[in-house]
């Protein structure tokens, strides 16, 4: 036990002696949460629009007002000529142009179904789609109100409620993803680098020739990184709840326990990588390619898994992050207990056991 603590202490010293890496490791979660929370949002506010109104009657005026007072749009320029559209997109950088045809009001009340043209800048397709959806909704609502008095014989009303995230805050989406990425990064990448460093520098020989058991070497090396992972987790959760008012509806204890489980999975992955490569550089490359990319792309964090082609969907099943994100979202947003996320938890436990088994085996193989 004493030898074990001597080892943990040495490993902690390594981390402290490299303040630059430490600052990056502790600063990264802060930067990521703040970036994702403030800068990178899916919500759109005050998008610049141009309006070309060929009628200029009360109805078109009212619709224009509705659009510009919604908070989503701001009028950047009012056009007199339809051929000024190109210039508005290029020069005034509007994201959306709204074109009213002539005699709009007369045709509207004649039930002649006049058309409003919505032209979006689709260099960013996601933004374009969102803007069109917002504008259409506002116009449809206006139409409903005007026609409401006419009392259609049959009509269906939809009432929409966005459960678990009423305000559609994108930070709710990003926090579970950021937690996953950071834990994977600290646990898997940093341990694989730390272990390979001993090999590269030749100190691993010295450790193996000492009476230390290999398992003590590995466990001693990963303990400080578990602590670092939990510290990161705490930073993210504090930021998310204090700054972005994100709720933790489920049990905090369960959330931490599940995170520890995911840290174990990541550590096992890191140990496995380190037992197969000889240099820190290769360890870094493999961690980035084999761990970070799937964690970001195939976990359902940014891109919905349901929309992926089936081979990618199949691969996503073996990405631990995919299951962990479901757990974090469930516990934080839906207040889910173990009874709800037991399947994902079980999958992670099995993955961890298999990985630890494999990494212990490959560690032994190397010792012959």
């Amino acid at each position, binding site marked *: 036990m*004493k*030898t074990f*603590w*001597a*080892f943990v*202490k*040495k490993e902690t*010293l*390594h981390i402290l*002696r*490299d303040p630059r890496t430490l600052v990056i490791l502790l600063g990264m979660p802060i930067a990521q949460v703040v970036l994702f929370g403030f800068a990178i949002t899916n919500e759109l506010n005050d998008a610049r629009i141009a309006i070309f109104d060929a009628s200029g009657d009360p109805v078109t005026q009212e619709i224009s007002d509705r659009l510009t007072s919604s908070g989503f749009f701001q009028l950047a320029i009012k056009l007199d000529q339809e051929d000024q559209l190109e210039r508005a997109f290029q020069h005034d950088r509007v994201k959306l142009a709204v074109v009213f045809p002539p005699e709009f009001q007369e045709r509207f009340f004649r039930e002649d179904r006049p058309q409003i043209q919505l032209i979006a800048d689709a260099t960013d397709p996601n933004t374009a789609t969102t803007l069109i959806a917002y504008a259409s909704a506002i116009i449809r609502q206006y139409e409903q109100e005007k026609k409401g008095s006419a009392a259609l014989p049959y009509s269906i009303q939809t009432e929409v409620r966005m459960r678990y995230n009423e305000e559609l805050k994108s930070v709710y989406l990003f926090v579970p993803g950021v937690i996953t990425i950071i834990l994977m990064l600290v646990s898997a990448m940093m341990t694989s680098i730390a272990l390979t460093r001993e090999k590269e*520098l*030749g*100190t691993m*020989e*010295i*450790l*193996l*020739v*000492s*009476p*230390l058991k290999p398992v003590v070497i590995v466990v001693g090396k990963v303990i400080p990184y578990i602590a670092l992972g939990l510290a990161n987790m705490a930073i993210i959760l504090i930021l998310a709840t204090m700054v972005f008012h994100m709720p933790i509806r489920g049990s905090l204890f369960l959330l931490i326990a599940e995170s520890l489980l995911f840290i174990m999975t990541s550590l096992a992955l890191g140990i496995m990588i380190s037992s197969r490569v000889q240099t820190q550089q290769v360890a870094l490359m493999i961690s980035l390619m084999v761990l970070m990319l799937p964690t970001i792309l195939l976990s359902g964090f940014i891109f919905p898994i349901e929309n992926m082609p089936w081979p990618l969907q199949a691969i996503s099943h073996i990405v631990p992050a995919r299951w962990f994100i479901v757990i974090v979202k469930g516990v934080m947003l839906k207040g889910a207990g173990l009874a709800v996320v037991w399947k994902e938890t079980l999958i992670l436990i099995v993955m961890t056991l298999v990985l630890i088994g494999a990494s212990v085996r490959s560690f032994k193989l190397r*010792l*012959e």
Partner: protein
Amino acid sequence: MNQAIWAESLTKKFGSFTAVDAISFEVGQGEIFGFLGANGAGKTTAMRMLSGLSFPTSGKARVAGFDVYKQPDQIKRHIGYMSQKFSLYEDLTVQENIRFFGGIYGLSLKEIRTKTAQLLEELDLEWIAKTQVRSLPLGWKQKLAFSVSQVHTPSIVFLDEPTGGVDPITRRQFWEMIYRAADRGVTVFVTTHYMDEAEYCDRISIMVDGQIAAMGTPEELKRDNNVPSINELFVQLARHTSSK
């Protein structure tokens, strides 16, 4: 004679390649035993078997009285090891390195404290005890590494090309340290590329293609083979096999 190392027909095969081919030798307690050979002759493999890092394919060996198959853990406790790669932590201070290695060999806090003070004094490094090892000159690092490899007072130390890349004066000082250790009764098993260093050893063996091609005191070997220096003998043996 009190044997520190005893090997009989020790063999290591990697697939169909025989790295160490049935070598037999003995090293007495307190002896300085030079283990020579060209790169790839099987020196390191032999050393790894003796230090409990890998199991032999066949043959027998005892190190410090312990069997290499059955008691590798006991062997590890009783040997020191210093490898050709620099073997201390560069980002830890001199003192932290000594403490760490004392710690992993299970020394008590009190033992570590006295040992640290003693080592620092011997090496005359007290004034930079709190300096990170990375800023020391290579020669000092090597001497420190040698001392640290004996922090748990092992009865045998294995030195794998300990003086690689070190200047002649430091090499000389390093060998003085080896002599002092041998005087204390520590057995020194050393591999080297420098043939002048071979002459400092009590006995040497020259490995060629996994086998021991010559063994004895430097004087015996020179006399029996009628060569002026060990260097000459080494070149002869190596050439002999490569022309075959």
